[in-house]
Structures are given as structure tokens and as C-alpha cells.
């Protein structure tokens, strides 16, 4: 059963330099317990997509169109008070920088207990007990004592574990994780990835994992959606997309992972820069950087085509033929 269905999501930023269509017609669906990797470069709109689901886009940004169906409710239409009741309760979020997400002047217990008591009328003692077990679940040693500490007494990795524990407190149906391991060093990163995977599997929580790192997605996600310039350009089962990418942009992303090619070989890179979102080219947004682009790409924007079950591409010249990919 699907937990979340996003249809034609549009989030625009109304800046002095013009309207920036950070998210411009994104569709995807997520089943219970499923992990979706949302991949793209900086500025591709992947984080804004995540914040749009929680309706936490900062002004001048605004969700201007589309539907965000969460368990049959359209979050895009929900009054703010009801949205607040869902946040942290049914839908939780983990942020990118663990050094910034915890309030520096409040103790960990304050910040955890308030997350429980914002949604349930429980005693402070009961909320505290739940906080202790959440901290234990994410692998924080002697959680009862650590609860009295302040954020600055934790390392970056530990702080991210606390943030994850907070996300888990109310047993959400969906967690949106916005590059939660990017700011951590590699060993901590792999530990946390393994823990998250296990927790999501045990609790049946669906997970949207936003990242620019395909290596992370490879080990974690069931499905992957590649974003470019505010749109999903390719989506499919993780294995399928990683072994046989169909969009030239996905090929470029995969080629730029170190260790993928032969030793001594130059890393491939995608030529050019991520586009200026306020002035996108008329045709395919990726055309100016694409090795495969022709006149048609520069004038008509391609639509998204489902070329196989669960496999869709937004390209005039896909690099795989229908039926062969799966």
C-alpha cells in the first residue's frame, strides 16, 4: 500500500531575479517500508522536494501546485494546524547538518520530550522513558545520562544519532532524510546507514533519502529517482538504474564516482555547470551539457515516459531500449 503519492508537485521561489521553479512537476509514489533514493546535484530541487512534503519551505518559496497525498490526505491543502500535528508524528525529517539542527542552549531531554508531548498527552516521565529507549535504539551508550547533556557535548555523528532518535520517537510512517550523512566522516556514515536501514526495516517506516551520493543509494534504496533542474529525469529500481542508466545525466553522475572505472583513468565529469534555475533553456534543461543532444532537445522539453514497469525516463534519446532494462 502506498504511504505517499506525489503528483505534479510544483514549488516555486518568488525572488527579485524572477520566479525560480525549484521543483517543477515532480511525481513519485512510496510504499510502506520502501526506501526511495532522491539523487541529484546541488540545486536540482531534491531538498526542496523533501521540505515541500513537510510544508517547511522557507519564504520566498511556496508550494504552488500539485498534490501530496499522504495516506489519502492531500498535504498541499491541509490547514497549518493539522499539518503541525502530522510533522514529527506521522512524518519526520532528518536534516543535513547535525551541528545546526539541535538547539544549542536546550538540553537533549528538553528537545526530545517536547517532540513527544507535542503530539501526545503523556507524563514527562513517560516521554523521558521513550526518549531513553529511542536513544538506545540508535546506539547511544548510557542514554539515560546522556539525556541530561547539551548538544555541544556530543560529536557530529552522535548528534545525528540524536536527531534520528528524535525522528523515530513517535513511530512515523515516513521519514524524509535530507543528506543526513553528508556532513559525517565515512566510517560514521556507514554505521549510521546500516542502523537506519535496519530501523526502517524493523518498523516498516518508508524512507525518502535525499543525497548526491550514488554510492550511498546503491546500498540503501529500493528505488531511485534522479532529479535535474527541478524535475525527475529517471526513476526505477536501484539496481536497474545503477547498472543500466537510461538518461545521459544519470550516466554522467555514475561516471563521476571515483573507483568506478580503471585505476589511472580520468574520472569522467559532466561538462558545464548546473543551470541557472531562473533562466532555464527552452527545451530539455540538460541539453546544453548533454553529449547526445540534438535540435529537438534544444527546442522541445521531453515528457516522462514509462518504458518498463516502474522504470521511467524523461529523454528524447534514451540510452536503453524498452523491455531490455529490467
Amino acid at each position, binding site marked *: 500500500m502506498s504511504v505517499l503519492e506525489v503528483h505534479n508537485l510544483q514549488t516555486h521561489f518568488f525572488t527579485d531575479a524572477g520566479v525560480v521553479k525549484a521543483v517543477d512537476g515532480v511525481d513519485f509514489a512510496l510504499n510502506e517500508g520502501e526506501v526511495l533514493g532522491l539523487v541529484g546535484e546541488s540545486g536540482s530541487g531534491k531538498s526542496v522536494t523533501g521540505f515541500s512534503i513537510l510544508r517547511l519551505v522557507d519564504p520566498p518559496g511556496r508550494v504552488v501546485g500539485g498534490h501530496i497525498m499522504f495516506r489519502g490526505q492531500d498535504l498541499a491543502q491541509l490547514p497549518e494546524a493539522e499539518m503541525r500535528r502530522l510533522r514529527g508524528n506521522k512524518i519526520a525529517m532528518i*536534516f543535513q547538518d547535525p551541528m545546526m*539542527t539541535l*538547539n544549542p*542552549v536546550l*538540553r537533549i531531554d528538553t528537545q526530545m520530550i*517536547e*517532540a513527544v508531548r*507535542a503530539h501526545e498527552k503523556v507524563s514527562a516521565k513517560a516521554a523521558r522513558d521513550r526518549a531513553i529507549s529511542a536513544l538506545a535504539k540508535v546506539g547511544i551508550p548510557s542514554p539515560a545520562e546522556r539525556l541530561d547533556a547539551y548538544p555541544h557535548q556530543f560529536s557530529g555523528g552522535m548528534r545525528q544519532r540524536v536527531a534520528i532518535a528524535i525522528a523515530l520517537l513517535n513511530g512515523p510512517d515516513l521519514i524524509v532524510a535530507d543528506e543526513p550523512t553528508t556532513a559525517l566522516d565515512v566510517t560514521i556514515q556507514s554505521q549510521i546507514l546500516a542502523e537506519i536501514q535496519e530501523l526502517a526495516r524493523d518498523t516498516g517506516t518508508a524512507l525518502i533519502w535525499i543525497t548526491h551520493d550514488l554510492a550511498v543509494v546503491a546500498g540503501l534504496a529500493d528505488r531511485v529517482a534522479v532529479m535535474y533542474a527541478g524535475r525527475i529525469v529517471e526513476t526505477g529500481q536501484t539496481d536497474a538504474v545503477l547498472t543500466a542508466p537510461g538518461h545521459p545525466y544519470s550516466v554522467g553522475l555514475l561516471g563521476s564516482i571515483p573507483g568506478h572505472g580503471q585505476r589511472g583513468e580520468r574520472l569522467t565529469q559532466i561538462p558545464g555547470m548546473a543551470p541557472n534555475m531562473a533562466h532555464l533553456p527552452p527545451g530539455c534543461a540538460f541539453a546544453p551539457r548533454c553529449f547526445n543532444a540534438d535540435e529537438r532537445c534544444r527546442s522541445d522539453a521531453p515528457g516522462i515516459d514509462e518504458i518498463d514497469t516502474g522504470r521511467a525516463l524523461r529523454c528524447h534519446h534514451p540510452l536503453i531500449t524498452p523491455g531490455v532494462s529490467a
Partner: protein
Amino acid sequence: MLVYLLRRIAQSIFVALAMMVIVFFGIYMIGNPVDILISPDATPREIEETMARFGFDQPIYIQFFTFVGNALQGDLGRSFVHGESAVTLILHYMPATLELAALGLFFSVLIGVPLGVYAGYKADKWQGRAIMTGSIFGFSLPNFWVGMLLILIFAVELRWLPSTGRGDTVDVFGIRLSIFSENGLQYMILPALTLALYKASLVTRLARAGTQEALVQDYVKFARAKGVSETRILFVHVLKNIMIPIVTVLGLELGSMIAFAVVTETVFAWPGMGKLLIDSILTLDRPVIVAYLMMTVLIFIVINLVVDIVYTILDPRVRVTGGTA
């Protein structure tokens, strides 16, 4: 923490010593107290006797060391006018000023913090702009004018509150205070509001700037992602973060409120230290002026020390352990 405190106290002693030098020599430069103390038709013998009695015949450095020596024993001389010990005299007037300043400070926080936080929250809306415009009045209206206006409205026209004087007092540990008697409190409201208006505007602006800065921080967004209510975000998450600059400024302002409540005390005929200072300057009552200035220095030092301690309560990151200060 203890080491840190001791170090701070040692620093404070140096400040106090430096102030002694400045105050003593500064006051020595103005006027000759003998002109006031001795009648013009006194004989030279009488003049000499008086000079000797007050020690004015000694070289200035001897006078200074006598002054320091006495000061260290808590003796800052006798008032030429009242004949009483200057310290006793000031201590007699101090409670009135202290309680007025305390109530003024309370009012300025009570008014300034919520207004500022709200103005920061609604920074681009008309509410925020209106509060900011209002605070300009708080800054620019002169104290004595505000005082007279308040008297005119609340005492003369509406007859809600008394205009001048101190009202009933209650003895608390031998100190006469009005703040604990209902009648006395009524007398305090107008002068305290007058004192508070400027500080409240200052606090409003500080709180607004801090709130605007804090609201865009990740921890606020994360608190929202937890489903915490906006009220709790503003008055727990944001407020605790913005209290540090506010406490710093209020600490300094409390000092100035105690030391320079002169104008307000004069307008409301409030029998505090400010009025005593003005009278002493007019009569060149040197020991009282010196004692007043020294007490002011002491008050500032104590307030700063308290502010530093309050920091450690507000911000766990500056909490010092052992010798690492």
C-alpha cells in the same frame, strides 16, 4: 568555576583602584570646599584650623593615601553639609533608587521582550513595522517630558495614580522599601514606567534583531519538523537563544538606571541617590560626591559579575570547568 570567579574578582579590584585615582583627583580639581565650609569673615586662624581638621593642609598625595586607607576600611569621609558619614548617607538614600531601578528593569523586560519577539516574528508585516516605529518614540522622547506627560495623564486627568513622593514604606531587614506596600507601589509605577520606556525600546529592538536571526536557523526548522507549536518555538527555542545579548545590555543599563536616575527622581520628587547627588554637587559636598561615584563603580562591577554568571546559566557552551576560563 571558582577559579574563574576569583580571577574576575581580582580584575574587579583593579578596576576599583583605578577608579579611586580618577575620582579622587578629578574631584580635587573642582572648586575649593573651604569656600563653602568657612564663612567669609572667619579669621585666618579659624581657616587654618578647619583646613587642618579636614586634612586640606597636607600635600595632595598624602591626602590621597589617607583617602584610600580610609576607603579600604569602608570610610569615605563625612559629609561637609550633613556631618554624617558619606557612606551612611548614601546607603540611606540607596534603597529608594534601587527599588525604583528594579521595577523599571522589570517593566522594560515585561514590555520589551514580548514586543520584540513578536516584531521579529512579524518582521515584514504591519504589526512588526508598527512596533518598530513605536520604539523610535521610546528612544527619542526625553525622560523629563515623558515623566511630566505621565503625571498629566495618570495623576492629573485620570487621577489613577499619585504623582510625586514616595508613599508608604515597609521595613524589610531594617531597610525601608515601598515596593512591598500597595500604597508605596502605586507611587512607584509612574517613575518606574518613565525609567523603563527607553530601556523597553532598546530591549524591543534587541529582541527583534535576535529573533529574526534565530528564526532562520536550522534548529527552528527542525523544531517545526518535530511538530512543536509556534508559541513554544518563539518563547522557548528562540527566547533562550536571544537572552544573552539582552542580559548583557540590560546589565549595563541597570547600572546606568541606578546611577543616573537623576532626572526622573527630580521630576517625581523621588527621594533617591540621584537627588542626593544633585544637592551635593550644588553644595560641593566633596565626600558625598566621591562616595557616590565609588558606590556607582561598585554597583557596575557587581552587575557585570552577575551578568557573567547569568551567561553560564543561559548558554551551556560558556560554562567553564576548573581552571580553563
